């Protein structure tokens, strides 16, 4: 028992550094990916043929290929194109690729949620004289976002777990720090991976809880007296 405690204390600084890195990269990917995915989803929901197809292609390419391959493209291929703006660090490649990957899932969820708002809502607002953008902003999106909360939580947790893949391009996130720790304590592989898995769980579980809470918050029927 004392042995495990010693190992734990020895690897704690590594785990902490790794967790902080995992936390930041997942936060950036979730934030940037959600904004990008939201915009794409809204545009796609409008069924303007050219944009609908263009972004459809974007989404299907991203969803139809492994994230690891995408990461390699962003890290190895794009910087080799010679374009100045794409000469990025491994960290930047990680941020961008994970955000783009996130956006493809968010876009599909947002479009599905917008489509799921009953047609009558559009019709009623149209009949009252609302412009298309007002209908979207004031009537449809508030209801669609509510529908998007539960599937979104699943995506977010998946993004957090996918940050582990970033270890292959040298991002010193949690899994990478674990591997470094294992080099120091090769006999405690199982224990160290166990601790790492636990850290991921401790991070992901509140995300699932939070979305459950948010879902109740936005989805519940409240009686609000405006007087």
């Amino acid at each position, binding site marked *: 028992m004392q042995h495990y405690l010693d190992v734990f204390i020895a690897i704690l600084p590594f785990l902490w550094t790794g967790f902080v890195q995992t936390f930041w990269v997942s936060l950036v990917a979730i934030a940037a990916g959600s904004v990008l995915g939201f915009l794409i989803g809204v545009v796609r929901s409008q069924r303007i043929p050219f944009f609908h197809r263009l972004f459809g292609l974007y989404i299907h390419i991203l969803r139809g290929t492994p994230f690891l391959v995408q990461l390699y493209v962003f890290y190895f291929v794009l910087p080799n194109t010679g374009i100045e703006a794409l000469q990025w660090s491994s960290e930047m490649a990680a941020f961008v690729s994970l955000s783009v990957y996130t956006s493809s899932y968010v876009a599909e969820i947002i479009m599905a949620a917008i489509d799921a708002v009953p047609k*009558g*809502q559009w019709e*009623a607002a*149209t009949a*009252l004289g*609302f*412009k298309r953008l007002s209908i979207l902003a004031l009537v449809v999106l508030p209801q669609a976002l509510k529908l998007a909360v539960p599937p979104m939580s699943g995506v977010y947790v998946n993004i957090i777990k996918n940050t582990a893949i970033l270890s292959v391009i040298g991002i010193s996130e949690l899994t990478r720090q674990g591997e470094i720790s294992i080099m120091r304590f090769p006999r405690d592989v199982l224990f160290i991976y166990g601790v790492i898995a636990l850290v991921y769980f401790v991070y992901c579980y509140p995300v699932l809880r939070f979305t459950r809470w948010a879902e109740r918050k936005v989805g519940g029927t409240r009686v*609000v007296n*405006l*007087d």
Partner: protein
Amino acid sequence: MPPSDPKPIIIAESVRKTYRSNDGRSHLALGGVSAEIGRGEVLVVFGPSGSGKSTFLRTLNALESIDSGRIVVDGVEISDPGADLNKLRSEVGMVFQLFNLFQHRTALDNVVLPQIVVHRRSKSEAVRRAHDLLGKVGIDDRAGHYPSQLSGGQQQRVAIARALAMDPKVMLFDEPTSALDPETVTGILDLMTELAAEGMTMAVVTHEMGFAREIANRMLFMDSGLIVEEGSPQQIFQMPRQERTKEFLKQIL
């Protein structure tokens, strides 16, 4: 009641509309419909399902596009590509079979929001007007409730108040009582009768023949995308000219 202005508020001329489905089949919804609605008039449109009566009503505020023909609302040709459809729609109130209240807004907000967004009224003015109208339709005590907390009849009252809040020149009712429990139907019909008595111009698609007999100035019987017969309630009910009208009335009365 005699229309004060002889010029009809809505004129529809040879309106044709075909629905095309993705598998290439097409369905003629309106095969050349011409009708007028005079100011202050109550027009009831009835007929079997699939006859095109709802489609016709929905072309009058351009919720449905038309293939050919002409629709003029208060002097503005709405099939003209340059027409300001949003302005037109704000002047034509519409009440739906399934109410279509904004689900994420309270009853009061449902009536307030369009006034602010479309008519740019101040919040306080819109709220005052909303309370007045909710009171008029007999539901101001439910102002703070969400649609999901209201019964069908209550939701339809809110929907009528919402349409009235835009100060429409004409109201279109698309089977307003078809989704209601039998005991709440009367309340909505009474409310509509009251509106008609106040001089509101109305076009109503309904199966409520007793109501039609009571408030309609004129009735249109539609079948297969065409107007089969047109006349006063007395004429339609007592001496229908067309065989098809007789047959339909026999089935539903």
